[in-house]
């Protein structure tokens, strides 16, 4: 792994004081390999390595720390910094019921994550309702209803267009004194003009307090394109990275952070209703480094 490889490089170094540029270059090559293998975007890797190089050459080697540990520490800190240092909770806004939209590409885990969020919020004693806003995928509402039933959260789908469904759900939500409405949306490509326009229209109409981009944690270099296009068109407020219960390193997280600057609020770690965790940057940093 990266730690061992860096260790081998620095074993050969005898000098104390400042690290030489050559030493750092060699270490950076190893780090570059590790990050690219972890699906961190090519451009994000480049920027990150420049930052690490700059800091490594400036810092004097500490007395009890080996040069490799020094570079690794700088890298780790840069990763945690990029991933977002503070934990950011959900914003419920001023109006009741609060509206939370989950958006993203096909199959990323939106429907499942809607239910996980509903479960978490109802555990926190909030009155939650799920809105079946996906009018396209076969049996999308059945999927949500079966899951909603399991956690005793009502699932509403009244109307034929997503706009009607959300509008009616808001009326019902107000009547039933709901605190939060979680809206499941149709999976869509970031380059599908019609679908992105629909989403733009929905966020403009309803001004949700949260628009969460749900991204598959195994996504490769394409994460940059996805994040860019979604951020361009709609007011993304946060990110949820799913399927991190596998062994994907999750480098897409860095790409999304670099492009959107929005906080990663949760990660999905399984298919069950309680498999939603708060995001810890240091844990993901370690995972990305392998």
């Amino acid at each position, binding site marked *: 792994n990266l730690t061992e490889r860096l260790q081998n490089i620095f074993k050969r170094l005898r000098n104390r004081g400042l690290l030489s540029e050559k030493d750092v270059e060699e270490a950076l090559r190893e780090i*570059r*390999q590790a990050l*690219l*293998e*972890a*699906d961190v*975007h*090519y451009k994000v890797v480049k920027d990150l390595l420049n930052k690490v190089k700059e800091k490594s050459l400036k810092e004097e080697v500490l007395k009890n720390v080996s040069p490799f540990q020094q570079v690794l520490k700088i890298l780790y800190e840069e990763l945690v910094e990029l991933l977002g240092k503070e934990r950011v909770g959900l914003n419920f806004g001023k109006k009741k019921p609060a509206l939370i939209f989950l958006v993203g*590409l*096909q*199959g*990323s*885990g939106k429907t499942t994550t809607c239910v996980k969020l509903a479960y978490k919020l109802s555990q926190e004693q909030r009155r939650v309702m799920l809105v079946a806003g996906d009018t*396209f*995928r*076969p*049996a*999308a509402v*059945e*999927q*949500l209803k*079966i*899951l909603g039933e*399991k956690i005793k959260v009502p699932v509403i789908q009244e109307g034929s267009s997503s706009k009607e469904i959300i509008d009616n759900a808001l009326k019902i939500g107000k009547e039933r004194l709901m605190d939060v409405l979680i809206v499941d949306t149709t999976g869509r*490509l*970031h*380059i599908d003009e019609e679908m992105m326009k629909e989403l733009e229209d929905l966020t403009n109409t309803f001004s949700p307090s949260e628009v969460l981009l749900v991204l*598959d944690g*195994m*996504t*490769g*270099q*394409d994460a940059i*394109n*996805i994040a860019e296009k979604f951020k361009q068109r709609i007011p993304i407020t946060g990110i949820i990275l799913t*399927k991190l*219960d*596998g*062994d*994907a*390193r999750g*480098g*897409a997280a860095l790409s999304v952070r670099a492009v959107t600057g929005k906080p990663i609020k949760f990660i999905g770690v399984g*298919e069950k209703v309680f498999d939603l965790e708060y995001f810890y940057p240091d844990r993901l940093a370690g995972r990305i480094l392998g």
Partner: protein
Amino acid sequence: IFKINKLDDNFYEELEAHLLQGDLGLELTEEIIREIKNKKFSQLLEVRIFLKEYLCALFSGLNNNLNLHPEIINVIIFSGVNGTGKTSSIGKMAYYLKSLGYSPVISASDTFRAGAIEQIKIWGERAGVEVIAQKEGSDPASVAYNSLEFAKARGKNVVLIDTAGRMHTKTNLIEELRKIERVVEKNLGYPVIENLLVIDATLGQNVIKQVEIFKDALNLTGIILTKLDGTAKGGVIFNLVKRFSLPVKFVSIGESIEDLKIFQPEEFIDNFLI
């Protein structure tokens, strides 16, 4: 990249960036760049020709046809990690095979995920193909068994088996897939004709680990690469083909029933190099 004029360091950096951003992976990218540099080409056109030939060669000798025999019951299993497009690919495949004159039946063997049975029943209706199902939570292998019995009774010659998405890291779930293969083989007296791993083109290097584990456990015969209508290039495929000699049989380029196409290596490579 092929708009650049001379083969200098800047060119090689741009080429490397393009290959890596297409999910080709560092190892294969460095190997290709090394080979190109060793050739000491002077023309951009030479590089492009070399690249295309190199990538095309990775697919030579691989049979990307479905190995169907009309007189027997051909079983095709669809496996893969969560959300890659297995269920919708089955709907599209049923439609495609019906258009070729086969009589398929679908086995709703994803008995785990909420709404999976309802979802595939709708695809079955769209394709005009029957779906054999039991209730949610029943044994996937038992649904497969019932589908085989149905096929025998009704003269169907293709059984398309849907399976629940699963992480390759969950050993017991991989074992569940092996059981389906065994039950089919025991019932028919010959193995599953095709076991296709459905891979999402937007996924990165982890796909290699997925194939490693699925291939080791199952008799994988091919790959279906989905979601190529996005911006992802699916470059992991080159590594998969090189490392595992696993043919790519189909690609999915959208969510409609006719969006499943036979894989064409040259077309895939042309799109990758754009």
